[in-house]
């Protein structure tokens, strides 16, 4: 029996009545269908109530970005050829500008890419190139997957043939659309080719579970029309079922042999669809049978990097919307403008089966709406009279109204974002709602399209100062509000549910000018109130109990709002609208003053009296422990030498400089700072930043501050008031106040009253407490201007938890526990890394407890459970012991590798070779000796020790570090100096000499930090240092003039490491004919010369052009600035830290970066 012709099918369709619903939207799921429909002009000849919608019908179009990134990277590898179906070659991905964005572009750069038309060609290719690995990058639906399976089931395949499988099943995409509830179509013609393999039955669920007419259709115009006729008939009969309109090729069960073959080699997996996300059971992966040929397993590094790209789309590309049938090609903003076949942006414009490409080649241009004009492709505005609100009717739209949903990620909670959204929506006359969901903000708004556009732009452009929003998702949703209701208020909904891992912790923020003005305004109810805040300022991290950030989950929950505060909290036009840390004298936290705590005391619970008493005590030269944002400060009049001396004595802190808080004076608040210190722009900016750190500033000659603040130094740590309480204290006293963290030496900052009174005891004369609990103690951050930037020395309040983005996604969550001194910890998961505040030195029990608490805090707040712990190589570090006792899998990262990786990671340098100088005070090297003067060449995960210093002994181990004169003596002896090189009694020197000669308890090291110690002790009497880096700081201060560098000899050791011989330098430092200030300058200049020499040698042998300087030694401003200038003069690019300290606080970050980079090369344990 002859099949009906297309004309006959058309007549049969036309003979059928219009369905009661008024129209029938029919989706196809096959690029072949769409091409036939378009090129045969079927839309033009069909009745206008039939709308034909192109759906997810092109495997190239849904191939995820990550696979393309990987294929591009593979094609550029030396021994790899990438073979792929023709269309794939041109599909662009969103690579950084300098990198190739498609296989085609990679080929232009020398990448080996061979387009193939069939799997058989790949086999030929592999045989022709036995010396190369041929990777078959195979994207396809089931129709293509079957022949791929056939190829790989052969037993005669050459070993060099590998498979990068990007195969997808079609039905899950339709299931995904149907699950949405508003699929956007009323009937489906199912793909005939797929059904020949998988069987027609696969599609039955569309009819039976979702009630949509369904027919499997072939590919000629006649066969498509047969399928359309079948679904129209079903719709008219109101009996949705599965028709097989392609019985010539398709059976109910499909090709069982092909299915069995596929099943033996491939397994069904969840899979990523470009721009759509992960769909369950929608793809194929290689089973263990094929493991040896699975490119994903062969090149784990490449895929690790590529998976980090997951979800990235070229900006503006709407291919995903086109693929899902939500918009038609011309509705994409890029269609025909940025995106054309010759310069495609998205795959739909590339692939022969992509809807955009098909429509474009049929002549549809942006001005037109659809290939046929008449059958409009924009979502149909059906005339109201024609609409049947029956079961298949689409969700109705209010005329002229649209509705959209946005999901914003990034820093959007605890920063006044929801109130901002509400104000913005009101301004633009939009209805809708906003809510916190997980760590994100979800906004739904309805209104005029142009207003919605403006709204979206403003959401990002006008976001509150503290917010860092990122648009995670945008979608069109049904406009459910009819016009008369279209202007209801835009509401803030309560937070929904518990947070996921995507949350961002808001940071503690200094009082804003508006709140400060209220504190100063005698008419305002906040007048004189030390805890005045709004949605733009106040404590955040330090008071958060858990997330999402709402008052009930902060330590302010103990302070129910009074009616007036409540009114402001509820008023969308108030700065305190939904601001969580607000309060007033009626309802908020209160001050208490306690004096003479030790011997019978006086307690003032009236807040105003308490404040006045504290001010009087300070004015009187007494020491007051003042509770602030992250903990207590010990405060004292910085102009009172007796007070300073008492504080030093009671705190057992003879030398370490005290930070000083200066009054906020003048227009920019910095007048008082300028009176005492020299202020460069970077430092001024840092002082005023939200972090409000301590900034180390060079003192003016006429600084007028007490020498006892920073004995022996010409620099002082300055900070500005940040809590209203600080402003009140400093305004009343109008003089500099010492503001040093209140702790017992070596222990963490104290943050609660009981602990303050118990542990500080007699150190302060009095306490100024408040009753707002500090849940997460955090020190002030510290910065120092070095080489044009205020670089962090200590990560603290207002900048931590500090977040960095990783270049690719981690397969499992990591916890990095850092080093021993300047301890920090890092939590890393997905592509996020979060660095804790400074914890302190892990020798003290309380610091160890704080360390454990910090880990608990981060994992709990972010809801992340680490699976692998990274630790230093030093077994004696508390952090290492903790890691090894944690019961979790552990991995060791050598100290200086971590330093180098932290610097490269901060700058995103994971691939390019870098020479990193890691100069610090000692850390355990991978060879089991103590390092600290190393030049490491390579990249994270792969370092080679290029240069170092000749090793020397540390007599007495840690004792040599506490007492630099020992090192001065032994380095002097080693340099051939005799006689009294350094201090010490004859007996001490004899004992030292004996111990040194026998190498008794004298581990070898190569640390520059220790050379600083020795140098300082050779120049100034220095029996014992009371804090680490004291010797180096004195030496830096001592230096005057540029200094004359010595040329130190270098020679290669048996391992090929270039070793600097420091002995001439030690001899020079001992030369008493030169002034100590000159010798100190010479010392710095000589180290710069060493850097140049070692860098030059590395360039000669490896061509490296980029250098990094890290490790605690580079906290030295003189050395670092001279080094940067000299190395840049030599033509190097020099990297310094910008967001991380160069000292051991960065070790935890470096541990993550190092592990991230090398993970793929090391087996899992």
């Amino acid at each position, binding site marked *: 029996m002859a099949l009906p012709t297309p004309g006959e099918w058309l007549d049969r369709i036309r003979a059928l009545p219009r369905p009661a619903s008024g129209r029938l939207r029919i989706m196809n799921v096959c690029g072949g269908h769409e091409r036939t429909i378009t090129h045969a002009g079927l839309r033009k000849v069909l009745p206008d109530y039939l709308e034909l919608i192109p759906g997810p019908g092109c495997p190239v179009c849904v191939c995820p970005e990550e696979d393309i990134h990987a294929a591009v990277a593979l094609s550029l590898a030396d021994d790899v050829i990438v073979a792929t179906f023709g269309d794939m070659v041109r599909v662009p991905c969103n690579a950084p500008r300098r990198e190739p964005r498609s296989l085609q572009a990679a080929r232009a750069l020398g990448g080996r890419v061979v387009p193939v038309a069939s799997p058989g060609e790949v086999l030929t290719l592999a045989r022709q190139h036995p010396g190369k690995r041929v990777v078959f990058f195979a994207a396809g639906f089931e129709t293509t997957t079957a022949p791929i399976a056939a190829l790989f089931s052969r037993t005669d395949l050459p070993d060099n043939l590998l498979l990068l499988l990007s195969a997808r099943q079609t039905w899950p995409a339709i299931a995904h659309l149907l699950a949405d509830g508003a699929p956007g179509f009323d009937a489906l013609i199912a793909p005939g080719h797929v059904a020949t393999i998988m069987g027609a039955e696969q599609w039955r669920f569309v009819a039976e579970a979702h009630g949509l007419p369904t027919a499997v259709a072939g590919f000629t115009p006649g066969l498509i029309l047969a399928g359309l006729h079948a679904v129209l008939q079903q719709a008219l009969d109101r009996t949705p079922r599965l028709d097989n309109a392609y019985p010539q090729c398709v059976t109910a069960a499909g090709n069982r042999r092909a299915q069995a073959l596929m099943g033996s080699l491939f397994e069904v997996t969840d899979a990523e669809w470009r721009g759509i996300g992960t769909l369950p059971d929608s793809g194929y992966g290689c089973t263990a049978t094929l493991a040896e040929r699975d490119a994903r397993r062969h090149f784990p590094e490449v895929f690790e990097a590529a998976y980090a790209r997951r979800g990235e789309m070229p900006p503006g590309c709407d291919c995903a919307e086109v693929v899902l049938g939500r918009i038609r090609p011309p509705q994409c903003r890029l269609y025909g403008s940025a995106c054309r076949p010759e310069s495609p942006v998205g795959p739909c414009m590339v692939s022969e089966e992509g809807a955009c490409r098909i429509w474009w080649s049929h002549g549809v241009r942006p001005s037109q709406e659809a290939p046929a004009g008449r059958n409009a492709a924009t979502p149909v505005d059906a005339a109201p009279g024609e609409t049947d609100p029956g079961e298949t009717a689409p969700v109705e739209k209010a005329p002229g109204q649209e509705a959209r949903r946005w999901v914003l990620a990034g820093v959007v909670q605890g920063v006044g974002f929801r109130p901002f959204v509400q104000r913005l929506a009101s301004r633009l006359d939009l209805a809708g709602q906003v809510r916190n969901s997980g760590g994100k903000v979800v906004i739904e708004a309805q209104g005029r399209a142009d207003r919605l556009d403006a709204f979206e732009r403003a959401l990002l452009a006008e976001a509150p100062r503290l917010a860092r929003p990122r648009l995670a998702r945008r979608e069109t949703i049904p406009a459910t509000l009819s016009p008369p209701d279209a202007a209801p208020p835009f509401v803030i909904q309560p937070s929904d549910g518990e947070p996921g891992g995507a949350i961002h912790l808001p940071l503690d923020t200094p009082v804003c000018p508006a709140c400060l003005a209220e504190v100063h305004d005698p008419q305002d109810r906040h007048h004189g109130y030390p805890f005045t805040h709004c949605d733009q300022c106040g404590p955040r991290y330090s008071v958060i109990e858990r997330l999402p950030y709402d008052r009930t989950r902060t330590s302010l929950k103990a302070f129910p709002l009074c009616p007036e505060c409540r009114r402001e909290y509820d008023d969308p036009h108030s700065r305190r609208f939904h601001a969580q840390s607000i309060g007033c004298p009626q309802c908020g936290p209160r001050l208490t003053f306690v004096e003479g705590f030790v011997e019978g005391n006086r307690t003032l619970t009236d807040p105003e009296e308490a404040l006045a008493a504290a001010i009087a005590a300070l004015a009187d030269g007494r020491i007051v422990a003042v509770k602030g944002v992250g903990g207590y400060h010990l405060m004292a009049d910085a102009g009172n030498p007796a007070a300073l001396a008492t504080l030093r004595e009671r705190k057992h802190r003879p030398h370490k400089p005290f930070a000083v808080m200066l009054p906020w004076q003048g227009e920019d608040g910095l007048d008082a700072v300028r009176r005492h210190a020299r202020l460069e722009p970077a430092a001024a900016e840092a002082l005023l930043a939200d972090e409000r750190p301590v900034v180390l500033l060079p003192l003016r000659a006429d600084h007028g501050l007490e020498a006892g603040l920073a004995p022996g130094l010409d620099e002082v740590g300055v900070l500005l008031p940040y809590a209203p309480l600080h402003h009140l204290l400093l305004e009343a006293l109008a003089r500099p106040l010492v503001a040093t963290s209140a702790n017992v030496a*070596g222990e963490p900052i104290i943050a609660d009253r009981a602990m303050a009174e118990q542990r500080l005891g007699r150190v302060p004369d009095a306490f100024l407490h408040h009753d707002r609990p500090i849940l997460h103690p955090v020190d002030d951050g510290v910065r120092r201007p070095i080489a044009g930037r205020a670089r962090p020395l200590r990560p603290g309040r207002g900048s931590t938890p500090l977040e960095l983005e990783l270049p690719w996604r981690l397969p499992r969550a990591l916890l990095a526990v850092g080093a021993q001194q300047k301890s920090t910890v890092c939590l890393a998961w997905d592509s996020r890394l979060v660095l804790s505040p400074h914890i302190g030195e892990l020798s*003290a029990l309380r610091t160890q407890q704080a360390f454990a608490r910090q880990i608990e805090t981060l994992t709990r707040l972010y809801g992340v459970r680490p699976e692998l712990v990274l630790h230093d190589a030093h077994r004696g570090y508390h952090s290492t012991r903790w890691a090894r006792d944690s019961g979790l899998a552990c991995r060791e990262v050598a100290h200086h590798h971590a330093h180098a990786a932290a610097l490269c990671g901060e700058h995103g340098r994971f691939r390019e070779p870098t020479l990193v100088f890691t100069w610090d005070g000692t850390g355990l090297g991978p060879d089991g000796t103590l390092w600290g003067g190393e030049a490491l060449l390579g990249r994270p995960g792969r370092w080679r020790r290029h240069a170092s210093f000749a090793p020397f002994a540390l007599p*007495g181990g*840690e004792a040599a570090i506490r007492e630099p004169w020992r090192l001065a003596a032994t380095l002097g002896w080693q340099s051939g100096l005799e006689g009294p090189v350094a201090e010490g009694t004859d007996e001490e020197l004899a*004992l030292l000499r004996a111990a040194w000669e026998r190498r008794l308890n004298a581990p070898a090291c190569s640390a520059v930090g220790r050379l600083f110690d020795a140098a300082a002790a050779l120049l100034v009497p220095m029996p014992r240092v009371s804090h680490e880096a004291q010797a180096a700081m004195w030496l830096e201060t001592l230096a005057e003039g540029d200094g004359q560098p010595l040329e130190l000899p270098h020679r290669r050791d048996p391992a090929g490491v270039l070793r600097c011989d420091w002995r001439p330098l030690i001899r020079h430092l001992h030369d008493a004919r030169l002034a100590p200030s000159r010798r100190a300058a010479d010392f710095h200049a000589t180290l710069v010369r060493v850097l140049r020499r070692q860098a030059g040698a590395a360039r000669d042998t490896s061509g490296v052009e980029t250098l990094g300087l890290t490790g605690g030694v580079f906290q030295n401003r003189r050395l670092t600035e001279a080094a940067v200038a000299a190395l840049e003069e030599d033509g190097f690019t020099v990297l310094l830290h910008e967001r991380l300290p160069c000292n051991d606080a960065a070790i935890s970050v470096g541990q993550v970066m190092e592990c991230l980079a090398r993970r793929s090369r090391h087996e899992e344990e």
Partner: protein
Amino acid sequence: MTQPGPDTATVTLAHGNGGRLMRQLIDAVFVRQLGNPWLSPLADAAVLPPFPDGDHELVFTSDGVTVQPLFFAGGDIGSLAVHGTVNDLAVCGATPRYLSLNAFLEEGLPLEELERIVASLAEAARACDVQVVAGDTKVLPRGLCGGLYFGVSGIGTRPAGLALGTRGIRAGDAVLVSGPLGDHGIAVMLAREEFGLSGDLASDSASVLPLTRTLLTMPGLRFMRDPTRGGLATVLHEVIQATGLGVTLEEPRLPIRGSVRSVCDMLGYDPLYLACEGRVVAIVAEDEADEALRRWQALPQGRGARRVGALDPHHDRLLLVNEWGGERLLQELEDDPLPRIC
């Protein structure tokens, strides 16, 4: 002075061959100095008399004694061999009765040195009122044993039912030490390295029997230990492990000689980890601590006794609190301590 029987002045391998030379050596050196009714038959085993009363139980211990150098200020390997074993018995509450002695002699050891060592050993045994009742002698080739070492076993008796051990330890109990810490470790180290300076530094090697005996009658006595290898810190770590309680030590109370401290400072050692050979660490119920201290301080050997800390239920570490309340954790001894300062 009696010359030893052998015709050579050093130990030779022939002294270990079981023949005439060996016989002469044993008679001349060991039996002559240590002889008693049980040892003198030189049988393969000693036959010991029964203890007449049923109120005592036997306590048995064994110890290997090596030290370099063999002689040091305040002692030598001979006295150390007796004190080590006697003290192990004493801190268990026992009265030492009998020792056995295995001597491992290196080829080339001057017999004059052996003579002095055994004389010292005999003197120490007499002072402790113990008898060496069995023994053995081996000679090892040159280079294998640093001159000489001893294997010593000891048997003692103690009143039945004496409950000493970590099980009785309670939070709040006091930690006492019987005298200055670290003397032995520093004296030996200085002698070994031939620094040529010793000043008043001498080993504390001695029997602790008087110290342990005086506390045995106190119901509040929980635990005693002689802090040998690893020092006080290591003993207390064992207590922490066994009890789950922490120990908080008060630094100003720790008895450490100035000379020991200054040498330790110079060489980067911590006296709390250095060995003592004549001290006792005792843990005593809080309310009997003063009495225990009084009893110790009444003995010549216990004049330097101090109460140094307490069992602390608030943590499970070994914590050292300094004079101004600063805290430092004392870790378990590392194999190879390396500086942690960066």
